[in-house]
């Protein structure tokens, strides 16, 4: 399964899309599939300062509760308003409508700590 190009990935199964100084963050297809039906997503507050790889929220599915980490540091500028009423959007469209939050990136160099699509594919292939 090829991972979408143009994105960066974390070992915690988040993806990141850089658009200028703002990064959009979500969880991967692999992550949503592993979690199963998602019933609740606890997101950081808009305005919160987050550091790369910090625990900033929770994804709750019918079978597990998993911590959510941010793949990059900065200020949270937006959270996906759809997820409060429709958390299963993360299952249906993990790379599109099911995005989680956006960060104004503090240090764009932090992306060097993330994986390429091929690197992430190797990670999940290794299990």
């Amino acid at each position: 399964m090829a991972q979408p190009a143009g994105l960066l990935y974390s070992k915690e199964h988040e993806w990141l899309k850089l658009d200028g100084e703002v990064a959009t963050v979500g969880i991967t297809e692999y992550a949503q599939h592993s979690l199963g039906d998602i019933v609740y997503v606890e997101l950081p507050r808009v305005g919160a300062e987050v550091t790369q790889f910090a625990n900033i929220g929770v994804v709750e599915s019918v079978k597990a509760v998993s911590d959510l980490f941010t793949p990059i540091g900065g200020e949270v500028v937006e959270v996906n308003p759809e997820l409060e009423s429709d958390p299963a959007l993360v299952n249906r469209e993990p790379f599109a409508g099911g995005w989680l939050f956006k960060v104004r990136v503090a240090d764009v160099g932090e992306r060097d700590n993330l994986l390429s699509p091929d690197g992430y594919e190797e990670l999940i292939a290794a299990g």
Partner: protein
Amino acid sequence: MYTPHTAPDIAAMLSTVGVASLDELVRVPPAVALKEPLAVPPGLAEVDLQRLIADYASKNAGVSYTSFLGAGAYRHYAPPVIASLAMRGEFLTAYTPYQAEVSQGYLQAIYEWQTYVSLLTGMDLANASVYDGATALAEGAIMAVNATGRRGVLVSRAVHPNYRAVLGTYARGMELDVEEIAVAADGTTDLALLAARLADGRFAAVVLQNPNVFGAIDVPDDAARRAIEASGTILIGVVAEAMSLGALTAPRSWGAQIAVGEGQSFGVALAYGGPYVGFIASTKEHMRRIPGRLVGRTVDTQGAPAYTLTLQAREQHIRRERAISNICTNQAHCALIATIYLAAVGGSGLRRCATLNVERAHALAERVTRVPGFSRRFAAPVFNELAVRAPAGLRPSSILAGLQERGILGGVDLGRWYPEFSDSVLMTATELTTDADIDALGAALDAIVAGRKEPARA
């Protein structure tokens, strides 16, 4: 020595670990070992023990006193139906109902409790209960801290001091910054100070108690509510006297997003201060942050109504270190008692009882303030208790001692908690306070003021 193991069990275990005796297994250093048997009397026959304990019990004087005590623990009538139902073995032996298929009765009772608390506070949901009102306040403050990401909690000085003390204990561990708002001249929270304190937006919560510790109606006015909302601060409404919910507007209607309080007034025995039953209720927005058990209603595979614990991802048995609270135990049996009480009296009964409390407190105020030198300490309207200022030269402690000699527990010396109000006594009347009780108190105060001593009541 009592141990739960039989002699053959012990012998088998000793032989497994390779020692000859229990004394060899557990060696107490001679320096600390007991040299002679404890001076404990031998065991008594059951009937002798009953006589002894009955003799001790007869030394309790409390029940023969006429009481005007309140201040967070209230004397109310408990209909006998409560004991008949709540003392059923099925309820007494039940533990936390994790296993829904064998716990439908208790789960339904807790669900009804949550429903009553939601209705009485005006909130969207309530939990299965916590230890007591003070714990409920501390947990409510944590909800607000988690919701806002702020560390400050602004608490009215008119919130019960015991509640503030428990909040302070939690705050130390969590490194929260708890600050006080002063009491205005009329005995309510000084709302004029509030807006200025909120301006910099560093408080997660504002905590007001209604009625407050002085019995006074203490809710925010429109300006205070606007200031609270504009600063993004969460208003926590404390209800230490749940009976008041039968007569006063619900916390939600005066702007609270989180309501916490004590349910003892609903049929739970005074019992020296506990066990009582705390409640927490909130708007739906804070549903995921409410601590402790939540019972939900659903349908089973046959479509019949069924109850189960729900939203457990918040709890410590799912996420130990990241749980929203490490409070786990609820006061299920006390909550059951309160639920039966509310079901028995019903909405109109609760309203009538609460109204009677107001009426009794006003009768008390009227009589006490006819005693020369006694006056209402504060002008604010009250529910069922009031601060009474003693005449100059008569200390509350000596008044209360004089009343006690006459068989009357007159109230709480406010100086115990408030040095600035050390001239005053907090007195409480409930539906159980009779005209005769009030007359007796009035006559005793008259006598104390006149410097006369009447013979103590038998």
